[in-house]
């Protein structure tokens, strides 16, 4: 799930990608999966995640020429920052947020009907519903750290906060998630 480690030559690739479609294509291949997974983990619905992923890379294509980052890590942080803001903008609409939750709830019900439930380990729809009940900034940090497994330095760079603040925010969110899932399952 993680997208760790810039591949060798990535920094040069970023420099070339400002003016070369071929180089940008290579960067895209390296980072598409990571961005898409982050989007689907935040948005649950594949089609919506694909739309946001598209918006991210199209925005990048239009502005990479003047992107000020120096290394591939900067580029990756940039991708995740754009994705975070696009996602937040999407779920800021309560209608759209409710639509995503409705899909998650439906999937949860289907799973509950078809599989035995391990109350100690909630399934993905249940966890998503719990994460979605958090504040937007907490959702971002939980997903980036807990699901994408980004180091705190990268989480912080993506969200424009200090690593220590990212750590505090993650642990605070974890506590809320525990409470939320305990209500749902009786324990978590």
């Amino acid at each position, binding site marked *: *799930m993680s997208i760790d480690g810039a591949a060798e030559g990535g920094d040069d690739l970023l*420099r070339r990608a400002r*003016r070369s*479609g071929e180089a*940008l*294509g290579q960067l*895209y*291949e390296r980072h*598409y*999966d990571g961005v*898409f*997974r982050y989007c*689907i*983990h935040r948005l649950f619905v*594949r089609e919506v995640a*694909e739309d946001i992923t*598209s918006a991210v*890379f*199209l*925005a*990048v*294509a*239009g*502005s*990479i*020429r*003047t*992107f*000020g980052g120096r290394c591939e890590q900067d580029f990756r*942080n*940039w991708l995740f*920052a*754009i994705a975070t*803001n*696009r996602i*937040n*903008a999407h779920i*800021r609409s309560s209608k759209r947020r409710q639509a995503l939750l409705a899909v998650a709830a439906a999937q949860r019900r289907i799973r509950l009907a078809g599989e035995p439930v391990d109350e*100690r*380990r*909630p399934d*993905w729809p249940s*966890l998503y519903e719990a994460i979605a009940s958090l504040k937007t*900034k907490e959702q*971002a940090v939980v997903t980036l750290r*807990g*699901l994408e497994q980004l180091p705190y330095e990268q989480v912080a760079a*993506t969200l*424009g*906060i*200090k690593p220590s*603040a990212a750590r505090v*925010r*993650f*642990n605070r969110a*974890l506590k809320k*998630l*525990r409470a939320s*899932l305990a209500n749902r399952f009786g324990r*978590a």
Partner: protein
Amino acid sequence: MLTNEDQFIRDAEGLNIDDAPRAAHRQDLKRRMLAVHEQSLSQTERPRSADRPLRIGRWTVNKRIASIAAAVLVAACATGMILLLTTGGADVAWADVQDKIRNTRTFVFTMSVQMEGQPEYVMRVMFLGPGRMRQETIKPDAAKGVVNIFDLNKEKMICLVPQQKLARTADLSAFPEEVRKKHLESAGPLSKVKEMIKGAETELGEKEIDGRKAKGYEVEKDGHKMTVWVDAKTAVPIEMTTRAFGDFQVTMSDFELNKKLDESLFSVEPPEGWKVEEFPVPKMGTVEDVVGLLRIWSKVTGAFPKGLTPDHLVKELVKREKECSKEDMKKLAGYMQQTVILLVLHPEARYAGEGVKVGDAKTAVFWYQPKDSETYKVVYGDLTVKDVAEDDLPADPRKPSPDDEADDQPKD
């Protein structure tokens, strides 16, 4: 689960999440992304005469300085339209349309250029190949009857204002090379166009236009799309429209191919008895012009302008005319004109001064790359200028970036 951070991560890995990307989306998005990238590069590296000169043209016309820029604008639009038109595919019907253009010696049409909030420009445009063009202004009323004639073989241009019996002449060879190149590229399309017939088009079916059965095509080049309707029988163009150039709505109609055009229509000699003026040879804008503009502007308004486009500056200036001394106004007009030239010649130039505190020595408000320079000239909020490497430039203020998009960035 969720007992601690490590446990959460381990357990999350065990979740059965359907998060594998779809190859089809990945491929499709890559194609779209590279097209956007290519378009972005072409817009910044190729002449952007169709991007900005309408504003320049309008401003210069308003200021009664010259209509050369407006003429160049229209020529640029015409060129763009024709380039699009002649980028077609192998279909027999489309090939007929191309042949009509390829084999025509003269090409006449009416062109309307519209942008929201701007007066409509309507011109009758005539090409007499190679390298000669005449534009007769129909709209707006203030410019009705004004004629611009380009003769690229002689490298001359003339603007005729019949109401004033005034002829403004320009020796294009005397212009700075970059400006001249743009004028030539904008105004000399026909022979070049005939060599550029390749590409692909989409058929749009048939419809009736003014009682004539018309066949439609969508032509695309460099990310710009144009709709072309031609006479289904003769393949002569009936109407072409595009929004390819930014906010422009450009429509060409009333085509006449191989119309006999009198040579005298393309004379660049001033009519006898008319007053003759020469267009001043424009100087190249420099960073000093931008600094001068920002200095006077901030002195008058107490802040940096929202943008450097002539439209915005002129509108704001009109409001504050009384607050600005005549001397400052005169200097400002000069700086603005030079800055506009700089912006046209340097599409990589960026302005980010809106909201920056005057005197802020740490925040860049403007930057561009002078010709043949490895580094950029960067102007800061205290109006100092520094040379900065491309990698150290601030983020592009016109494009999405983490900062731009961080309208709801969490802040601790």
